[in-house]
């Protein structure tokens, strides 16, 4: 397996656990969506995978994580990892082109042809010399998406990247993401609270509960391509409603309700 997470537990500064006994395996080239209510630890899991979190002092991380047989820190240092935040996180002083080629510049192998291809892939040819302040929210997300693919990542981590966009923009970007993912055979983990987004993009969906554990997991089996899914969203959703959408929504509700149950118990005690 490309990613192996075994019995992962994590707590900030040895306080209440954020992640609780997480076990995930993911094959190369697959897309995993992690859904769950706000505060369930989805983004924390992503940040641990990216090698950002264990750096902080006092954090408690137990269990095993390996990406291609390496630790998260070792894997990050290979440069085969990309991360896309909820905000586009563009350099405000750099143009579209400069933002997209930034990871390549950092690596010391800026490639104009490749940068231009990515600009074309996300449909921003006319805006390559624009500054982020001159772009709409959707355009900024497209720049961030293109930047994520600039280093040909093996693993792309997406932290609610499309949450601020309307459905029209989301649909376009789902297709762009899938096209780029297919070209590069990138493994994608996307964190989202949008079940529809998870079903459109993912091969596997994991629902997390409010204790930071896994409430349920589903393997999505569908013969629809991303284009068919996006072009026929309501039809596609109807087809997966009973087998996937409903159980995932129930699992999210159950995972969330447990928190309330526990809070009530604490209150009564």
């Amino acid at each position, binding site marked *: 397996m490309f990613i192996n997470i075994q019995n992962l537990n994590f707590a900030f500064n040895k306080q209440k656990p954020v992640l609780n006994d997480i076990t995930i395996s993911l094959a190369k080239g697959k897309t995993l969506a992690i859904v769950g209510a706000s505060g369930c630890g989805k983004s924390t899991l992503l*940040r641990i995978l*990216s*090698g*950002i979190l264990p*750096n902080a002092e006092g954090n408690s991380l137990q269990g095993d994580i390996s990406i291609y047989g390496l630790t998260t820190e070792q894997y*990050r*240092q290979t*440069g085969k*990892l*990309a*991360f896309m*935040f909820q*905000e586009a*996180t563009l*350099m*405000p*002083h*750099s143009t579209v082109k400069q933002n997209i080629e*930034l*990871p390549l*510049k*950092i*690596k010391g192998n800026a490639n104009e042809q490749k940068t231009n291809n990515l600009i074309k892939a996300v449909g921003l040819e006319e805006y390559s010399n624009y*500054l*982020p*302040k001159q772009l709409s929210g959707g355009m900024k997300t497209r720049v961030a998406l293109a930047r994520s693919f600039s*280093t040909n990542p093996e693993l792309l981590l997406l932290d609610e990247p499309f949450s601020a966009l309307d459905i029209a923009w989301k649909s376009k970007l789902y297709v762009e993401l899938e096209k780029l993912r297919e070209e590069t055979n990138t493994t994608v983990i996307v964190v989202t609270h949008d079940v529809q987004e998870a079903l459109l993009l993912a091969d596997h969906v994991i629902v997390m509960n409010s204790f930071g554990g896994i409430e349920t997991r589903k393997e999505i089996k569908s013969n629809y391509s991303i284009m068919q899914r996006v072009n026929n969203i309501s039809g596609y959703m109807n087809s997966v409603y009973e087998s996937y959408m409903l159980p995932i929504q129930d699992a999210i509700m159950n995972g969330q309700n447990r928190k309330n149950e526990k809070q009530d118990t604490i209150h009564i005690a």
Partner: protein
Amino acid sequence: MKNKILYILLSVVLLAAWQYFGSTSQTVRLLLSSPSLVTDYFGQNHTALLQATQTTLIEAVAGLLIATVFSFGVMILCFYFPKLMDFVLPIMITSQVIPLIVLAPFFIILLGIGLGSKIAMAALMCFFPIFVNFAQGYKAISQNIHELMHIYNADTWTRIKQVYFPLAMPSIMAGLKISATLAVIGAIVAEFNGAEIGLGKNLFLAAKRLEPDLMMSSLLLSTLLGVVFFGTIYFIEKKIINWQ
């Protein structure tokens, strides 16, 4: 536009009032001279006055440049050794408890009556605003950007070049604008305490000898220096920060 007309009108009214009272009142003439007398004085003594202005300008520019280079240097060291910031910042803040002006005589004793003591004073006055604003600008950089640089394995120099300096630039320029006027003040205050030449020396002598023409012409030239300094930094800021 409306404000500009009001400012011009206000200046004309003040000048006219200054001329009127300077011509009609002996007391006002002794204290403030008058625009026509100051213009005459400048015409007769322009070589000496411009030399004094040039000296103060050199001291202020050198002080500002030294403070800028030094504060950038300390910040770059702090980027390489982040724990250094926790050590340096309290020292910086504590140093501001000392009224820096009182150090002017110390610099005269230490560095003599020449340019060195004035440059040191100007640099000392400028250092803190530049450094603190740079530090604030750095701290205001989004955590996501720091994490993005970490994920992309950017080394410290790349981060400094690509992220820290450009993103902290608005704060750096704010610090430089404050320091631009402080540099002129620092140089003049140091000249009060002893100088061979300079606007501060002129102001000191004018007060001692009750020479309102010298005082007002030196005062106007000092103001002009401050405005030119501030304007230059403002112009540079507008040129290099076009992304806000």
